[in-house]
């Protein structure tokens, strides 16, 4: 079923919309959640939460890309769930690695957090990514949005792992400079 048809089901408040999203994007969203949580049960609950959220949000929301919309919701759920469980267990999944990698882009200044509007940060990152090549942008997002392991990104992009790592390293460096130039660091 096409996304437009699914959205029409949402607008008509047909619960079949949830079944269609589950069928079409459930696997994708579970993959995203699994990269963060490494727990099938938790990932499934994130997907279920995502379905509930879409039911409450559409309408009035009109997602441009339903796949990305669902994945973003699931990812956010997974991040929150990860934070909640963090104190109870010793982490896992790709999130700790991703956070560690990104640490080089930021300076841990206490007052920075108060100064930065998160929306500005999002806009800045968007501009940064749009200036990058499509290939690099995709590698970056596969890593830091979908949180795929480097090996999976290499398979997805038909690249060598070393190339993926190199691209990520250079992009992190450039992002840091970019954020500094924008006055965000």
């Amino acid at each position, binding site marked *: 079923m096409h996304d437009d048809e699914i959205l029409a089901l949402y607008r008509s408040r047909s619960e079949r919309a949830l079944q269609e999203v589950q069928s*079409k994007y459930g696997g994708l969203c579970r993959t995203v959640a699994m990269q963060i949580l490494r727990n099938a049960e938790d990932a499934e609950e994130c997907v279920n939460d995502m379905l509930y959220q879409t039911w409450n949000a559409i309408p009035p929301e009109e997602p441009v890309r339903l796949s*990305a919309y669902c994945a973003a919701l699931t990812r956010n759920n997974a991040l929150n769930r990860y934070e909640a469980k963090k104190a109870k267990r010793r982490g896992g999944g790709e999130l700790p690695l991703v956070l560690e990698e990104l640490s080089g882009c930021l300076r841990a200044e206490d007052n920075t957090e108060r100064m930065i509007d998160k929306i500005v940060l999002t806009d800045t*990152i968007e501009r940064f990514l749009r200036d990058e090549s499509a290939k690099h942008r995709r590698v970056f997002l*596969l890593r830091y949005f979908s949180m795929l392991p480097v090996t999976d990104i290499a398979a997805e992009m038909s690249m060598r792992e070393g190339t993926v790592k190199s691209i990520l390293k250079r992009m992190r460096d450039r992002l840091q400079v970019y954020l500094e130039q924008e006055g965000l660091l």
Partner: protein
Amino acid sequence: MTNKDLLDAIGRLPQDLLDEGLPKKTAQAAEAGDAPEIKMTGQPEKRSIRLRMGAAVAAMCLLLNGALIGGLILANRKSKENRAQISLANELSEQKLETPGYVRDMQDYYTTVTGRECTVDFTGMGKEFDDRFELEDGAFTIHLTGMVSDGFVLYTMFDVIPRDASEPFGGFNAYITEESMLGGGCTLLRREKREDGAENLHYVATHLRTDPNHLMFDSKSEELFCICRNKDDAKDNQSDEAAKPVNYGPVAESAPFRLDFIAEPEYISMTDPDFRTGGSVIEKAVVTPLGMYLYAKNENITDSAPYVSGLPKSELSEENEQLILPDGSSKTVKWLDGWKLNASGESHLRMLFAEPLGKDTPADSVIRIGETEIPVSDLSRYFSGAQPEPQIQQADNKPAYVKWMQTLYDTDYDFTGSGTDLDITWEDHGYRVHMTAAAGDAFRLYYFYDVYPLEGQPYDKDGNRDEYFPIPLFSFYDENGENLGWKRHTGYRIGENPLLLSSETVDGQEVWHMFGRVTDLTGTGMHGCTIYTCLSAQLSGLEPSNSEASDTRSSAEAKEIPNFMQKPEFRSVNGQALKPYTSYAVTQLGIVLVSDDLGELTADEFETMSSQLEIEQAEGEWQCEAFYPGKSAAGEPVAWQDWALSWMQYPVQTTFWNLAGIESGGVVICHFAKPLDIRPSINMYLKLNGVPLKVNNPLPDFITSDAQPAATEPEPDTTTATTQTTASSVLAVNIRAENVTPTGCDIVFTNDANSDVCFGRAFRLLNMDGTPLSPLCELTFTEEALELPAGGTRTEHYDWSNGYGNLEPGSYLFETRVGGTPFTANFTVS
């Protein structure tokens, strides 16, 4: 701004951008209505490994009273295309050096390790460094001087230069970021006393490659070294952040370097697929100038489990398993003389470290091994620690739990009465799980179950387990009938990882014999608790996320295990001398020391307890010794639970592998010992402040087996100074007083037993008050195996000039271990 903010910001990017970041293959499959099944790989995620290592490393350092952790961060890989060219360039550059420092260090290292002068030219196998790193407060400077590797073990030489004598160097270990690297420890090579009283220490640290798919020769490092002081105590290592060194040194300033001196190894294919050692299938081997490495794939081990858990017991029976090859080739035998087997990393790699013979030797050895007429599989009998796979046998009508407990403990001890047989079976689409028995004492319950993979072993292309099998789950009911829930009760520790006991093929069907354990942490025992079993349907572990859900997901076939556990008999300890312990109990399986509140200990009390409390061995029955953590950098006792956790993960690194210590919240300490020949009149001693306190006959009344003979051995005398001290009537260690010199002595070993004994040369020297002498160098013995046949005697000369130099006149204690039995003997240097 935090990293989380950055991630959140990325998550709020426009959907057209995010769409680019979705995994296309998964998306395509999903759009085709064929959403892929999420598979649990069974492989511990990278971070998980690192966290465990981080916590373990921290705990190990804390165990060594360590306040300082030095770290190496090795990362990334270099392109293979440039390897040959770079290696050649590096080799040419190395030729310009007359004798690189790393060559001298490696020669010193092997000379002291083997006891024979090593003249191997290591030129070209390493690289000189002259980098210095300093802690933020300047307390220590680390001077990196060289690195050497053969592609499997990375040797790093460095000096530790303290600012002054105020803060002793407490330990060094590595913080590894790559999952395929394992910190192999750090060895003191030499020490230099300074005029200000401080000591400069020169160390060699080793790091091991454990993943055959990621070899060192294909590596480089972009972010090199950091040093750090771990200011957190062990409990903080539970969190993600604490797994990373707390205070970095000048990491960013260190220049990238490449491990170009490492060459690609040449593998030997093992032609016989049945070649096994301790249940592990050897797939390939490689011989380098520094050792022999066997890649063993144990198909029955889940990668999710710590490697120690998955190893067959035979491989844990010795800290350093000795490999002795047949005498058909004198050169080969000579070259292998002194090898030791380290089970390193995860379950896939066994490493054999050898005395190097030079760069040209390995090829010769490769040919020699390849040309041997002996079927490779026959070599397995030369692994002294190798044991046949245990089989299920009911021939002598013993209950199954007796068999399994005997297998578990590797003993003939009759466990009758300490368990019950079970017959509970669950099955899902992939596995059938059959629980066969449970046994234990009031403080520890072992449960045994067989796993039948119905569709074969699901491994992915990387050799990792694709799924977990369902794990039996326990639910506890207290004495009042209240269900304590499926969640872990705070009073009990449930072993979280499936533990493989053995495997076999029955009628073409593979069977994994597994066991798990539940340990009481309350100090009151699990008696009176009714224990039910069910099967966890959750893929990732024992604990369902909530009790309601677990009841529906779990099998309805929960059954009660008959309560065979007996109430332990607690006895009060011998007055205040044993503070902080208030009572103790001894069962078939161990001794349990109970303390009301370890948190009330002062630092001095804690230190005293840490260093001097021990359980004396009586008559060799109890392989029992207490291990205690050290203090944190702030002088506070470390969290017991964390320390115990690390110990559980690395029992192979302890001398007494057969012990299991459980600590929780400073409440109770359990020591489980190998139940060999426990006798009703065993004499146990607790020694505090050097004074042995007899605990008389502590065995509780419920051990009434007539098969256990009464003991009549006299109590050990630990204070009488003699030149001969024996801890057993069948093994004896004598020092020839007339041959004692300031640098060595002759030791006579006598074996009056009916079986051969194989032991190593490890030893240490102590003052007469039991405090160890400070070694000049930790490399004081060779690792060669010494065989002592039944009824035989052999004399060995021990030279401690490398380790302790010339001893001052006086009396000392010599301590060594034969056949697992510790021996001490005193001697006098005149």
